[in-house]
Structures are given as structure tokens and as C-alpha cells.
């Protein structure tokens, strides 16, 4: 267990640890409930973890924004080059092929910008979701601290985005009926 400041790099994302845990179940599936019992201190730990995650998302938003700006700048540069190529068509040697190559680059940048923008809005969404979760959790902490049932509820909700919760429920209903 590490308690160090969260590292900024992708390789230190919490989700990678979660994935490793899941993979160990996927590969040798003997111990399905390895995550059985966690003490009450997990409440505080979970809260801290969520807070760290929120900070991480905030950084990610900044990173993506910077990347978006950079790519947009690059795109403008390309547009200018393309224009120059177009106007000086007769003078240049084989401008057609060069312009085609630049055009392809410009299209690639365009695609990148669209993708970064959508990623940005997704991260924003996640950020909100996490913040909400954190608030709910703290409220519950005040309301019913120390209750076993709550602890279970708490663990279940922790770290899962709603989509999987819904899916697990869906699958249960599907198989039960």
C-alpha cells in the first residue's frame, strides 16, 4: 500500500491497479471474492482516494486542454502553409503531391481536435460524477457511520461508475427471471 502523493503520469493511474486486480480474477478465477472484508478505516481511505481521483481528473482536464491548444496551433500553421502552397502553385516543384500530404496532415489534426474536445467533455462529466459521489459518501458517513450495511453499500458504490452498477443489476435480473 502506497500513501505517497499521487503521481501525475498515466502509469500511476488508480484505474490500472483496479485493472490488475480484475485481471487476476479473470485469469485464475478461483478467488472471486478476494475483496471480502475491509475495515471501517476504509471509509476514510475511500474518501481520500476519491479526492485524489478528482485531483487527477482536474489535471487531466488541464493536460487535454493544453494538448487541444497545441494541436489547434499546429492546425493553423498547416492551414497557412497549405494556403501558401496553393497560391504559389506554378512556381513550386511538384506542389500537388506536397499539398496532398499537407492536406492529409491537416485532416489528421482536424480529427485529433474533434477527439480531444470530446474527451474533454467526457472528463468533465467524470469529474462531476466523482464530485457527486464524494458528496453522497460524506453525507452517508455522517448519517450512518459504523453501520455494517452502510459499509457494504459504501464499498459497492466505491470506484464503480454507474454504468457497471447498472449492468450488474441488469445481469442479475436477467438471470433470475
Amino acid at each position: 500500500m502506497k500513501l505517497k502523493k499521487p503521481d501525475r503520469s498515466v502509469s500511476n493511474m488508480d484505474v490500472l491497479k483496479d485493472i490488475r486486480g480484475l485481471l487476476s480474477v479473470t485469469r485464475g478465477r478461483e478467488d472471486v471474492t478476494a475483496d471480502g472484508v475491509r475495515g471501517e478505516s476504509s471509509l476514510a481511505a475511500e474518501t481520500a482516494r476519491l479526492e485524489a481521483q478528482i485531483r487527477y481528473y482536474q489535471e487531466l482536464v488541464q493536460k487535454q486542454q493544453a494538448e487541444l491548444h497545441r494541436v489547434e496551433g499546429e492546425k493553423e500553421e498547416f492551414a497557412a502553409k497549405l494556403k501558401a502552397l496553393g497560391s504559389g502553385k506554378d512556381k513550386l516543384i511538384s506542389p500537388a503531391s506536397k499539398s496532398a500530404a499537407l492536406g492529409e496532415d491537416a485532416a489528421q489534426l482536424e480529427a485529433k481536435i474533434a477527439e480531444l474536445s470530446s474527451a474533454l467533455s467526457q472528463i468533465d462529466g467524470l469529474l462531476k460524477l466523482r464530485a457527486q459521489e464524494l458528496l453522497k459518501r460524506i453525507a452517508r458517513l455522517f448519517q450512518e457511520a459504523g453501520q455494517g450495511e452502510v459499509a457494504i453499500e459504501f464499498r459497492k458504490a466505491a470506484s464503480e461508475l454507474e454504468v457497471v452498477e447498472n449492468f450488474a443489476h441488469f445481469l442479475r435480473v436477467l438471470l433470475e427471471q
Partner: protein
Amino acid sequence: MGKIIAVAQHKGGTGKTTTCINLGASLCDMGKTVLVVDLDPQASFTVSMGINPLQVEKSIHQVLVDPNVDMKSAILRRPTLNFFIVPAHVDLAMAESELAGRIGREKALHKKLAPLKEDFDYIFIDCPPTLGILVVNALAAADSVLIPIQCEPLTLYGVKHLLQVINLIREEVNPALKIEGVLRTMYDRRTKLSEEVSDSIQQTFGNLVFSTIIYRHVKFAEGPIHEMPINFYASRSVGADEYRNLAKEILTHETQKA
């Protein structure tokens, strides 16, 4: 005996359909007989094959909901290649409610598809970007899952969820389900982030990651609009080469096992 591989990831636009097309075509080219089942109501795969999903006589939809329609009767063949297709139709979106209330509905696809393992070397299932009865059916019918991951940090959350789903399916429906591999797609050489994510994927998934990386190519992005992405495969484009390498890796999986 063929192998059924579900190409799944509920995050949209990670390259599932592109992988089915180009990996499928590459395997065909290497002499394998390939079937792709389009299980996505968006029918992108079907459209990409130049088939109008509104005009198909029989689609995967009928196969799933009508006990009297067998899979073979819905198969179309692409001329010149050993590439076979079960098309989708928008009405597949209704399968969800139609299958509700049926016993064994999570096994509907498995029942129809399993007998075809005799006839094909590889059967790919192009999954929709959702988590619902269609994906449950795909994972219940598959021997393994191929997970395309876009080299972007957010996608890792999607992968985590998919692994949770796979574990659930293994516990409840299909204990034999394996991970065929994790495929890094749309890797952008211009960004550090792609590299970071790619490295993390490598470290986390270890030998479950395909060594082949699919880079971002403008030609791929244009594919569906020009309706024939299979052209990349036929062409000498770099992307086509990448998918050929992936096909080779898939083939080694079989020889390693044998």
C-alpha cells in the same frame, strides 16, 4: 473447429468495426474462412461491406428472435473472398425488448452460432457500444474477447468496466470465456499521451496485449464514408499492414495452444 471472438468495448468509436473488417479480411487473405456477425443496430459493419441494411432479406435480428430462422440462412458472402457476413438491421435495437421474457435469452446467439464453428476458422462478433442483452449474448457465445483500446487515458476506465463485465459473465453465463487480447488502436504518434497510455497498457496487461499497434491513419477515418474500408486492406496502406500483423499474431495464438 473454429473460434468465436467477440470484439467488444462499450466505449464507442474505439475501432471495433474497423478491426472486424480489416482483421477479418487479413485472415481471409491468409487462407482462413471468416464470418463476421454484425451485432450492432447501427449496422456500421454491414454498411461498410456495401450492404444496405434496410434491404437485407434476413438479418441477425430474425436469427435471434425467431427460433425457426437459422444462422446459415442469413449469411451473405463477399465476392472474391472467403469473407462471410451476417448483416444487421436497425430493427436489431428491438431485440432487447423482444428477447425479454424468454427463457435462456442470454444464450440465444450461442445456440445459433455454436453449430457454425464447424464451418469457419474464425467467427467475429462486432459488438455495439453498449452494455445490454446484445453484448451479454455476444460474450455468452464467444470463446474469447478482443478488446480494442484507444490510446487515451479515459478509455482505461472503459476497460476496467469491461473487465468487470467479463468477470460477471464468466461467473454467471460463460465460464470458459477468455481474453484473446488487448489491441491498442488509434495511437497518435504526435502525442506523448498516446505513448504513456500505450506503455501503461503494456505494463498492466502484460502478455495479453497484442504487440501490433494500430496507429491513427486518415485513410481509416475516411473509410466508412467511402463505404469500402476493405479497400485499405486490399491496398498497400500502412494500416492494412498493421492489421495483417495482428492477423499473424492471432494465428500464433492457435499454434501456441496446439
